[in-house]
């Protein structure tokens, strides 16, 4: 039920500084797998993370389709292992410092500036910042954030024991996290914009036939109501236009993700949704700047894919460093 692992201390030694071979922005699966490959290959690697190591994967209660773990593995546990593996080969990791600017200076020199006022220099930079849950932008959503509106069922689910919750979005994330909420809540109502769930079959079967679950399809949530905290969710039947209101103590929103690319929007090429375009070697249009994982265009938001991207980016970096060396 409980475990007592030593989460690596946020307090750590200052990074060694100097010129890094490879600076990785974002410590999710893409960033850490790239760090593992690169550091093991002998590169001097720095990982910069704005929050804590793990990325979105760490907030996933159980990951069941990452190969090698037949019983599934807690997202947190998987990411902690990746971190240890990266550090074992000498990767330096800085948490709680957000990168604000990536500045290519000349061939083989890119400066990375952070919110804490630090500047790091590297030969290659990997953008592995991932994505974060999208907001709906409906009335009540911002107002009741932290008062019933949540984007993290793993964090907040335990607070809804015996309460009524609504999950907005019946994709993989919505159903996966909904499954977690079914352990606590007295009833869970799922509301989906489409007329069907786009989630994996196995999740649909587990969640939607659950006695505590109710599902509304083809329905658009228009408002979250409350006083001190959330009290109800209002949604529209898209076929009939009829408005329905259901009482709720909590609302968990899983309506997709948006990429964390604001800080590089003037640097690299983005697609219309803000994801970074790369070639198959993970190279952006800017020399020495790579992208990997969920932040990359046409990705699948899967840990396995992020890990694969990270590996490819490390290989590309190795090639590029060799090229720099031969030119020097």
């Amino acid at each position: 039920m409980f475990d007592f692992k030593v989460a690596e201390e946020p307090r750590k030694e200052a990074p060694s500084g100097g010129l890094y071979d490879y600076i990785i922005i974002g410590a999710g699966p893409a960033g850490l797998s790239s760090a593992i490959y690169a550091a093991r290959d002998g590169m001097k690697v720095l990982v910069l993370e704005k929050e804590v190591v793990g990325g979105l994967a760490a907030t996933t209660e159980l990951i069941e389709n990452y190969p090698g773990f037949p019983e599934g593995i807690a997202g947190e546990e998987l990411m902690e292992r990746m971190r240890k593996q990266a550090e074992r080969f000498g990767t330096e990791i800085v948490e709680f410092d957000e990168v604000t600017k990536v500045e290519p200076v000349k061939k083989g020199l890119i400066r990375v500036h952070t919110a804490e006022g630090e500047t790091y220099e590297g030969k290659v930079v990997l953008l592995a910042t991932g994505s974060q849950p999208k907001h709906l932008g409906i009335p009540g959503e911002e107002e009741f954030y932290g008062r019933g509106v949540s984007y993290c069922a793993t964090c907040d689910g335990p607070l809804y024991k015996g309460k009524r919750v609504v999950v907005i979005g019946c994709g993989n994330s919505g159903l996966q996290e909904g499954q977690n909420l079914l352990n606590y809540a007295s009833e869970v109502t799922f509301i989906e914009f489409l007329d069907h769930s786009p989630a994996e079959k196995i999740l649909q079967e587990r969640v939607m036939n659950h006695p505590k679950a109710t599902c509304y399809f083809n329905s658009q949530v228009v408002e979250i109501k409350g006083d001190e905290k959330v009290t109800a969710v209002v949604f529209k039947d898209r076929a009939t236009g009829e408005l329905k209101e259901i009482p709720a103590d909590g609302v968990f929103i899983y309506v997709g993700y948006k990429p964390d690319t604001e800080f590089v929007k003037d640097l690299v090429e983005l697609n219309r949704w803000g994801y970074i375009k790369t070639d198959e070697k993970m190279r952006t249009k800017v020399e020495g700047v790579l992208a990997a994982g969920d932040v990359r265009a046409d990705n699948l938001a899967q840990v396995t894919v992020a890990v694969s991207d990270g590996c490819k980016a490390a290989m590309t970096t190795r090639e590029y460093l060799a090229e720099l060396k031969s030119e020097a």
Partner: protein
Amino acid sequence: MALLNDEIRGQVAEMLAGLPNKVKLVTFTQPENCPYCDLIVELMQEVAGTSPQVTSEVYDFTVHKDKVAEYKIDKAPATAIVGAKDYGMRFFGIPANYEFGTLLHGIQLAGHGHALELDEATKGFLASLEKPVHIQVFVTPTCPYCPRAATLAFEMATASDLVRADVIEAQEFMELSNAYNVMGVPLNVINDKERVEGAAPAYMIVEAIKKSI
């Protein structure tokens, strides 16, 4: 079976080795309505077992009124993390999963006797305090963002004698959580007035403290 396996015990021992000051973990249990009291006591004893600098004491909240008063404990289960003096760090409930890190950080703070991570501006502000500040941080064990808020509160408590930091495992104190409308974690409640949702940077907590005074 031990709660901490050999590997974890080794890591904890390493983290707590060479603390300059002795640290007492003073735990308060209660005979009823405390599903995790036995676990908490065992955990504290195992942690204490890793370092000669750390000891564990256990009292019954309903019996040992002198200790309850000495450590200003108003609910149980509770653990006071006490160094060369009482810096005002309290953990209410079981420090499990992510929160085990918060407990260890608290022990390091108490053992060093000064803040380890605060910036100069925050330390300066805390040194200028003239009135008591009570920070309550509501957490759940499964919340990866919570230790950041909890350890920041402990840092502040260590930096100023006027700051008291209570980290509260929300599920074990449902009534209190409901009273404060805790619907998401971490939640910082300052002097019972100001709320800061999420793992906020130090300057935001400082702003909330200023507003609350």
